[in-house]
């Protein structure tokens, strides 16, 4: 019924794992923040170092700056970076979905312009999907882009665009035709230059006190016509294709990894019965989720459609990411080691976002239910 075929990581992926670990050991300065959440550390210099090693855009064609590596190799690099708590958020979205989107749907000129810069760790992208009145119901977006001479005139507001105040570009889902009977029709994707186009980017403070996500306001913002990605009106099919990549990776279950590691450290070499139980429970979940995610990497490598499998990984992984701080804190005395407390606080404060970003738990359960034939 639900098929997650066994997949072993090939030898070259394990060789690469050693290279990534060596690299991380040689750059301890970038590991000071030690947070496994993929959206927690925006450090362009670190992204550029990864780009120089060919660890961004790994599966892409060499002609566009990629390394033509397998999804397994990409998997290993991403999980090693996350587990180490490396700062990966600058290039994360561009690497995970903007690059693949442009390679699949973009014009040749767009591919030549943006993709090699992404792979070099020098062009960072934000997502422009949600709006003040469009969250889970993405097809209801109201931001309009109207043809005006040799370009589009954009009006509307995008919301929750992570790092839009730091990144170079956004791929925005906009309405290019008025809504008709088919609400998925008439949507298109446009590349916005966040540094040069006339847009207003306003950071929004989150409950952790950080400013990572943004409101991005377009007021008669003009972008040239060659920023349209794919065919006009094909936006819905394009955004849904992005989501398969977005939902099955190790970032969907490793956000709380540092809490686990610090729990192991705080519990020490002679843990209590309860501590062993909690550590073992969490380890069993990490091991299982990881095998599921590797299985999906194998399916992606074979070009399979993974919408339901990705939703299953994200559903389990995100719930687990919330479970980790909940059970770890109770396995330690309430006044405990600072490293645990720091990792714990960071993760607990970020935890509400785990089951919201990339599709809420409720939306994912709907996707799974459809896969089970219930709707």
């Amino acid at each position, binding site marked *: 019924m639900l098929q997650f075929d066994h997949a072993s990581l090939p030898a070259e992926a394990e060789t690469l794992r050693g290279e990534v670990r060596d690299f991380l050991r040689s750059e301890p300065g970038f590991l000071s923040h030690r947070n496994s959440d993929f959206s927690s550390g925006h450090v362009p210099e670190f992204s550029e170092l990864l780009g120089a090693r060919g660890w961004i855009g790994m599966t892409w064609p060499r002609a566009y700056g990629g390394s033509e590596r397998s999804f397994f190799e990409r998997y290993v690099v991403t999980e090693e970076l996350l587990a180490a708590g490396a700062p990966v958020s600058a290039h994360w979205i561009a690497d995970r979905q903007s690059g693949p989107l442009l390679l699949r749907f973009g014009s040749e000129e767009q591919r030549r312009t943006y993709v090699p810069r992404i792979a070099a760790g020098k062009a960072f992208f934000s997502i422009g999907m949600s709006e003040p009145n469009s969250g889970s119901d993405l097809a209801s977006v109201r931001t309009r882009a109207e043809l005006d001479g040799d370009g589009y005139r954009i009006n509307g507001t995008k919301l929750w665009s992570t790092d839009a105040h730091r990144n170079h570009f956004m791929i925005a889902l906009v309405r290019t035709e008025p809504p008709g009977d088919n609400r998925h029709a008439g949507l298109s994707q446009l590349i916005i230059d966040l540094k040069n186009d006339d847009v207003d980017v306003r950071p929004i403070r989150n409950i952790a006190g950080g400013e990572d996500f943004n409101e991005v306001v377009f007021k008669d913002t003009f972008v040239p016509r060659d920023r349209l990605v794919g065919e006009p009106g094909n936006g819905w099919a394009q955004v849904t294709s992005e989501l398969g990549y977005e939902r099955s990776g190790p970032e969907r279950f490793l956000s709380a990894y540092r809490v686990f590691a610090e729990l192991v450290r705080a519990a020490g070499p002679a843990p209590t019965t309860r501590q062993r139980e909690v550590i*073992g429970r969490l380890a069993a979940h990490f091991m299982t989720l990881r095998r599921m995610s590797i299985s999906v990497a194998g399916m992606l490598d074979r070009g399979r459609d993974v919408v339901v499998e990705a939703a299953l990984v994200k559903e389990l992984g995100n719930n687990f990411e919330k479970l980790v701080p909940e059970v770890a804190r109770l396995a330690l005395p309430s006044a405990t080691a600072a490293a645990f407390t720091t990792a714990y606080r960071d993760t607990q404060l970020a935890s509400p976002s785990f089951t919201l970003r990339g599709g809420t738990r409720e939306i994912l*359960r709907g996707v799974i239910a459809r896969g089970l034939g219930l709707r």
Partner: protein
Amino acid sequence: MTDPLLLESAERIFRDYADKALWDAAEQGTFARDLWQALVDNGFTAMALPDSGFALGDLYAVLKVAGQYAAPLPLAEALLAARWLGDAETMTSIGLALPEAPETASAVPWGRVAEQVLVLPQAEPFADPQRLADLSERSTLRVLSTDPAAAASGSNLAGEPRDQVSGTLAGSVEVAQPVLLLALARAVQMAGCLNQVLQLAIDYAGERAQFGRAIAKFQAVQHMLAAAAAEVAAAQRASDSAVAALGSERFGADLAAAKARVGEAAGVVAEIAHQVHGAMGFTHEHQLHHFTRRLWAWRDEYGNEAEWQRLLGAEVSALGADNAWGFIATPA
């Protein structure tokens, strides 16, 4: 990778024989002799022999199908015992030692029909302090020739016989990792059983109508089933990974993770399946409980979740925080 034809053949036999009448009769103590004979006739006991050409993984693939059909047999014990003894002719089950009575074994699945019982050395294999390495060592299992008539009957909460039997010492056999291999059997049986329970719940939700529509159309029900499906998927992957690790140095850790994780899934999925089935699934007449009670029973046999978690946690702690990731991130 197990031959799909072998699995199809196993599935056909279990489907033909395993039904409500058989489960009820077995719970009354009647051994499913026809099903057993069909398995013997089709070579499913002979395949357990070490020189049969079948891998240990093939036995587990068959046990998963047996779990899917709640086959009321001591199949896991019989197949593993046949493997260890090189004897598929003598009906053999496996039990735990009783410290004061060397010629008695406890908690023996279908001890009442076994001609022979292998006795695990430990009375309490999971008593603290215990490390995975202790359970991975070779142990000597005593072989008892038993008199089925003298068995004291007991049962687990699924009503499966778990008897105390006495006999005469007939020899011994050296076995590597016996407790681990038995725990893996329960993990894969649960994985098969979980598939069935999810399917029953999905089918029932599609058939049962309330408020003018199938209850599967209600979002609350869809979300419960989606959550159950995720648990079932995790259980499949965890148990398959442990089977794939058979014979490798990772096996102990992967098995510990699998038994703990599948056991967690068993509790969640059984709860959801019953909620979806409503009062109908709470009746003895319905078939659901033959599966859910087995899930509740099997998660406790050969080590419950907490016991395997403690063993796994001890491994991680011994390595320390900076090596914990290396322990989790294995190639398999």
